[in-house]
Every structure is written in structure tokens, then in C-alpha cells.
């Protein structure tokens, strides 16, 4: 493992927080995308059924 010396906490926490925030943003984007898509598919299917 790479030796970061006395600044290890600063460097690792910066990377950790960044990766967490980016992972959260990506997860929220994908989850909301899937939810809206499912909702739209249901509405389109109902619309087709009802003519």
C-alpha cells in the first residue's frame, strides 16, 4: 500500500467522501430514472388498453 505519511487522513477522507457523493448521485439518478420509466410504461399500457 502507498505511504501517504502524516497527510494520509486528509487524502483518504477526500477520496472517500468524493466517491461516496458520486456513488450517491449515480444511484439517485438511476433509481429515479427507473421509477419514472416504470410509471410511464404503466400509463402508456393503460392508454393503449383504453384506446
Amino acid at each position: 500500500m502507498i505511504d501517504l505519511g502524516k497527510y494520509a487522513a486528509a487524502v483518504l477522507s477526500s477520496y472517500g467522501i468524493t466517491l461516496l457523493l458520486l456513488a450517491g448521485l449515480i444511484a439517485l439518478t438511476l433509481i429515479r430514472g427507473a421509477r419514472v420509466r416504470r410509471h410511464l410504461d404503466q400509463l402508456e399500457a393503460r392508454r393503449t388498453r383504453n384506446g
Partner: protein
Amino acid sequence: MSLWEYANPQKFMRTSQMVLPVLTVLTVLCLTAGLLWGFFLTPEAVNFGSTVKIIYIHVPAALMAINAWLMMLVTSLIWLVRRHHVSALAARAAAPVGLTMTLIALITGAIWGQPMWGTYWAWDPRLTSFLILFLFYLGYIALWEAIENPDAAADLTSVLCLVGSVFALLSRYAVNFWNQGLHQGASLSLDKEENVADVFYLPLLVCIAGFVLLFITLVLLRTRTEVRARRVRALITRERMA
């Protein structure tokens, strides 16, 4: 072929569906290569020690925080002038991404500042203008959520975006305008003399490319969701009226 063709939601959805897989692969490759290169394969800097490794996330995030707002400015202007819904939805989609980038820049800057300046925060021109930019992002997102009529929301948020652009530009040029404060000058410049050393510069460029690609990928994904959400609202309204 005209750029305005992409203002058609169907054309936008078809094209974005085609480019998204390629963009996703490029994003993962660039981010992984840049961050691994910067973290594991670059030396410590004389003045900064190992904290120089924070540059590979701090600088790209700060760059994207400002450029995300400028992208929102362009799409907001297109909405105000030409009333293309996709452009207003793209601005809305970009805001949370820009907010996250601003937050990353602020947090990593504070963590980096502590060992270098002896403090997490100072009311330095660049730091303060970045904090104001962060608040503008929050206000912009809150305004979209607060107004039910999507066209009215797009109008008002576009005006807010115009006002906030002053602070986005100020964040970029604060160091040049006020030659004071703790924050150093730009790490990247067209003048090679002002750039960081090549050993840090090259992995930094790859990381920046990764962050730009991540931004584009996420904005495309989120804009697709906004286009679908708009269609959902239209269908629900039609059902209620039937």
C-alpha cells in the same frame, strides 16, 4: 442537419440512447485510469507532500461546478429565447450534478486547506464565491421543486440562472480580480509556465476528461428522465380531463 433537431424530445431520446453506452464506457475508463494514475503513480510535491493527490478530485470537481452552471446558463437562454422544452429540462437535470461537484470542491478544498493553511475555511474571495455558487445551486433546485407549472418554473429558474452566472464566473476569476486570500492561482493555464509540473499535469488532464464525461453522461441520463417525467405529467392530465 441542424442542432435544433435535438430540441425534438423523440430525436433527443433516440440519439442519447445511442451515445450513452459509449459515453459510460469512456467515463469509467477515464475516471479509473486518471484516479489510479494520480493516486498510485505520482510522487509527493515539495510544498504539498502527499496532499497533492487531492488535486485529482478537487480541481476537476471545481472546474465542473463552474462549467455545469455555464451549461445551465446556455440551455436556460435557449429556453428563454426559443422555448425548447428539452433545453429547460437539460438545465434542470444538470443542477444536482453541478451541486454535487460544488460540494466535492468545497469539502476537498477544506480538507486540503487544513494541513496547508492551518484552517478548514477562510473568507477568501474564491472560497466565498464558491459557497455562494453552492447556495445558488440549492436555490435553483428548490425553485424548480416549488413551482407546479413547469413552464413558469423554467422561466423563473432561467432568470435565477442568469443572476447566478455572475458568481459562477466570479468563482473562476476571483483569484485574478482580488489578488488576496489563501487560495493559490489556477492549476491549469494556457501559459505552460503557470501549469503544475508535467508529472501531475498529465494524470490531472485524464481526471478532468473523466469528470467532464461523467457530467455529460449523468446530464443525458437525467434529461431523459425529465423528458419521461414531463410525458407522465401530460398523460395524467389527459386522463383527468377525459
